[in-house]
């Protein structure tokens, strides 16, 4: 890695004076190390990761309130708690927020925070683009949610089928907000994907071959490739819709001969890889947590890697199973039913490998581990119900019923979100320097398990009893009363589980402060990967020097070795061999205003498209200024604290001790 082996110096081209303070004479360079300004201008992948996570939890509260509103409305038959119009907005926004503003960004939060730490890099490949990605996501999400106050949210479902998404059928601006907001978050995902793929492929520490990377890195890499290829497709679909709604084009105008199935195809070509890119980071997380607390290596590392790649690859070949009843013809149905069946294979491999990792392990059942086991069991339910409707004939009875709602909540909530919870409990000390309370954590876990299964378990039954999705209300005579009532009870238990987590966050912080901020040490879990070989919380510069990677779970192998009898012994404690966190001489990329400003120009243009094209002029102006401001600003600021210190000799010394 150049960044370590080279003196950490960013050479400037001739003509540029070092430390140009205000490149366009607009701003002076942001300098603050703390406070709001620091967060707004930071390019540190860890801070950006924290911001991704906090923003996602913030959006999760909005989406969660929407979910509770849905459940209150459906608790009793013929309820008028929400009007048909309000219900359609609430369920559409619930789905959209949970997918695009919660599950995807939490995955991005973990990827941002962990990828550089797990591959032994100092930051991502393009720190400013990283900041730009975050601000695009956050401002796009805010813009999407501003629709609540500006004439109502989108009301076409998260899938937004044509032609119901046209102005004729949805005259409010809700779908325009949906469209533009998600275009902006799409830019975030795409630039983030390019950035993180480059980081993983190109910035690994010495010795870290691809097949020595932690599983989480692998799963995130596959996720980013899925984003790279799926986002452009939804972008095109949304641009077509934008053209139709704002500029009066005819892409979905049936009168002009348009085919509404085009939207369905484009949407699901994106939509199905989307499902996998939401679950794969969680798979990666539990693949780190389970070996750590089973005290065993992951079972079948290569199979875990290749099954992840296979899921990613096959994820692009199954989209039309969302369209089995659209009348695409039996040939297409057959082909997609078969491909859908077989994507169960790599998924099953993963589950069985986790189970095999548990087998014979000495399991420490702390909260992170409990959530991981929760993922295995609940995702299995979701996966198996998936197999039942991969059968196209049964799917004609099950699609668009609550059976499907149950299925994907088992996958995305019982799977992805439980995995993320495991990740929160596991990496919290590395992120914030203190542990989350275990006792509250266990309450949190059990409340969520009970609430989750009580909410979504009955939905299997409701769906098979014939309750369709997206129904504002149902009739007393349909026989759906009982299980809807229990699902609503469950949803409130589930919500209190989420509140317990948030309480735990603040409570743990409070108690930690009160106890005089004890440091949990670099390696509180006796963990396996190299992010635990640096101090907690992770120092701003990550690594003092290049970690030298010899094997998978390299840090674990530094701690354990066989004694003369061939028995594994702990030979070193994590805290003793961890890097001291001395950032002397490390020079980091400087913070910048431009990513934030460039990202801010996009919602401005978006509001312009929705309300008045004149508004796009200031937006466009800000965009051009930001682009040039960004381009002309040196990414580095030599006047920054930390100072620039040429430690060439030190580095040479470290390099010479390396065994490759």
């Amino acid at each position: 890695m150049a960044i370590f082996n080279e003196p950490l110096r960013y050479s400037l081209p001739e003509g540029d004076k070092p430390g140009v303070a205000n490149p366009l004479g607009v701003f002076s360079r942001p300098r603050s190390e703390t406070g709001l300004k620091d967060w707004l201008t930071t390019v540190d992948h860890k801070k950006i990761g924290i911001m991704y996570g906090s923003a996602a939890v913030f959006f999760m509260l909005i989406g969660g309130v929407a979910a509770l509103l849905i459940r209150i409305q459906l608790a009793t038959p013929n309820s008028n708690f929400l009007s048909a119009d309000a219900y359609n907005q609430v369920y559409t926004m619930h789905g959209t927020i949970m997918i695009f503003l919660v599950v995807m960004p939490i995955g991005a939060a973990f990827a941002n925070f962990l990828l550089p730490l797990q591959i032994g890099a100092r930051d991502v490949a393009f720190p400013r683009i990283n900041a730009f990605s975050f601000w695009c996501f956050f401002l796009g999400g805010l813009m999407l949610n501003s629709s609540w106050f500006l004439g109502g949210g989108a009301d076409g479902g998260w899938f937004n089928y044509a032609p119901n998404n046209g102005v004729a059928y949805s005259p409010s601006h809700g779908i325009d907000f949906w469209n533009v907001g998600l275009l902006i978050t799409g830019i975030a995902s795409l630039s983030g994907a390019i950035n993180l793929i480059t980081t993983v492929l190109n910035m690994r520490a010495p010795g870290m071959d691809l097949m020595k990377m932690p599983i989480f890195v692998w799963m995130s890499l596959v996720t980013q490739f899925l984003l790279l290829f799926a986002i452009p497709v939804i972008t095109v679909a949304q641009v077509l819709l934008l053209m139709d709604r704002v500029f009066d084009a005819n892409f979905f105008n049936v009168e002009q001969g348009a085919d509404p199935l085009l939207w369905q195809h484009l949407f699901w070509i994106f939509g199905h890889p989307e499902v996998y890119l939401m679950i794969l980071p969680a798979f990666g997380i539990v693949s780190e947590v389970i070996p750590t607390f089973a005290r065993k290596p992951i079972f079948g590392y290569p199979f875990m890697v290749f099954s992840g790649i296979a899921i990613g690859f096959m994820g692009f070949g199954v989209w039309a199973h969302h369209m089995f009843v659209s009348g695409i013809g039996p040939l297409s149905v057959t082909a997609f039913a078969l491909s859908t069946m077989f994507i169960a294979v790599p998924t099953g491999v993963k589950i069985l490998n986790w189970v095999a990792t548990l087998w014979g392990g000495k399991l420490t059942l702390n909260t992170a581990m409990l959530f991981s086991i929760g993922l295995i069991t609940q995702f299995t339910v979701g996966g198996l119900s998936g197999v039942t409707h991969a059968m196209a004939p049964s799917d004609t009875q099950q699609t668009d019923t609550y059976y499907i709602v149950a299925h994907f909540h088992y996958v995305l909530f019982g799977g992805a979100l439980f995995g993320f919870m495991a990740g929160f409990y596991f990496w919290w000390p590395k992120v914030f320097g203190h542990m989350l309370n275990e006792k509250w954590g266990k309450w949190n876990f059990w409340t969520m398990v009970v609430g989750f299964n009580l909410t979504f378990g009955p939905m299997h039954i409701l769906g098979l009893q014939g309750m369709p999705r997206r129904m504002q209300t149902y009739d007393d005579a349909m026989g759906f009363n009982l299980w809807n009532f229990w699902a609503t009870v469950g949803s409130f238990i589930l919500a209190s589980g989420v509140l317990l987590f948030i309480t735990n966050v603040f409570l743990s912080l409070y108690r930690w402060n009160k106890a005089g901020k004890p440091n949990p040490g670099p390696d509180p879990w006796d963990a396996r990967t190299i992010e635990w070989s640096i101090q907690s919380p992770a120092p701003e510069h990550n690594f003092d020097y290049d970690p030298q990677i010899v094997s998978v779970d390299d840090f674990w192998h530094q701690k354990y070795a066989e004694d003369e009898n061939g028995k594994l012994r702990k030979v070193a404690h994590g805290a003793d061999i961890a890097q001291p966190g001395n950032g002397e001489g490390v020079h980091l990329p400087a913070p910048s205003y431009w990513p934030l400003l460039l990202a801010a120009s996009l919602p401005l243009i978006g509001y312009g498209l929705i309300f008045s094209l004149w508004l796009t002029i200031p937006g466009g102006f800000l965009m051009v200024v930001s682009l040039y401001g960004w381009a002309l600003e040196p990414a580095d600021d030599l006047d920054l604290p930390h100072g620039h210190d040429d430690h060439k000799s030190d580095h040479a010394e470290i390099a010479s001790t390396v065994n490759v």
Partner: protein
Amino acid sequence: MRRFNVRGGVTLLALTLLAASCADDKPLNTFEPRGKKAQTIYDSMVHIWWIVLVVFILVVGGTIALTIKGRVKPEDYDENDLPAQVHGHKVAELGWTIAPAIFLAAISVPMVNTIWQLEEDNAPGELDVMVIGNQWWWEYRYDIDGDGFFEDADGDGELYGPEGTGDQDDKEWPLNIALDDDDLSVPNQLVIPAGQQVDLTLTSRDVVHSFWIPRLNGKRDTVPGRLTYWSIHADEPGEYNGWCTEFCGLSHARMRMSVVVLPEAEFDQWLAEQSAPSEVPAEGTDERAGYDVFVSQCSRCHVVSNDDQDLQDAYPKDFEADLLNGAAPNLTHFASRSVFAGATYSQYFGIDPDDDNLDTDQYLNLSDIGKFNEADVLAWIKDAPSRKAMFAEGRRGMPSFDTLSDIDLDNLVAYLATLD
């Protein structure tokens, strides 16, 4: 504080579970097929359920058992006494890669068979019905004159037909579906004969809907600008319910469906009666006054076939090619149906729609066995949007007629009650 009574809670839960599993009050239940096609689907899925159940018990049970067995209290954990460091087992891993693949391949064979079997059966049969989705009600067209077509749909001389007939290239869907005097348009309630396969040609006049009668077959979308094909089959007479299952906008939840299955002879009689025009009420009656209100207020959107030239002239047969205007339900035999407003409201009291043993005769002369639901019909006409959300102001859905006087409304309802 009162202690929570665990035993009472468990008993309560058990009782509710029992009640839920016993009651046969679920008209949409997918596990109670009542026709050939639904039975095929049911048979193809039920054995998967057993397999899935076994896998579920093995994996979830195994995971929980391993967790309980392997747990070690953190304080008892000895760093120098690690479990066996197994990195993997090639044979096992290959095994659980290949075995599920073979297994899935095996269950795929009957699945593919079923897909094609369900599809091939959609070929033209004895009775063909065209299904047209509208926001938020269904229109059913019967090919009465037996020419095999659903009439000159777009007026260009080319005909739509069931699958395999007619001009299949002519697929642009005209939004002005011309009415044909020879053929029959029935809204909201599909009536079919028992024991006979009915082939459906589906399309939509506005957005994507989905046609679904769970007890008779799975679902199939109706896509504007496209024709899709499906079929249903019912073993026994009775009423079967369904629901539009593709989200279709504001009142999606009130786009419900009702299929009445009659014995064959009665079906023929029903068809003959429906094909006849309705009568114009005699001069001077309340019904006649109601008819006049109908001609002036309702005939812009609603069709009633009779031999009155004034009415024929009052509304155009070809609806304007205006997406928002659409076509409203044909009311010629309004009172012969048991439901209205997208099968959301009952037209008669005294019918238990879930009674499978219902004497099917009553559908021929509903007025004989139930009392016409004047109150709901009146309330509907007076302010339809408050009973079912619609974009009436955007000319999509029924506007409110609260400007009409009470007498006019009463007369109108009286007239509608005569349309049997």
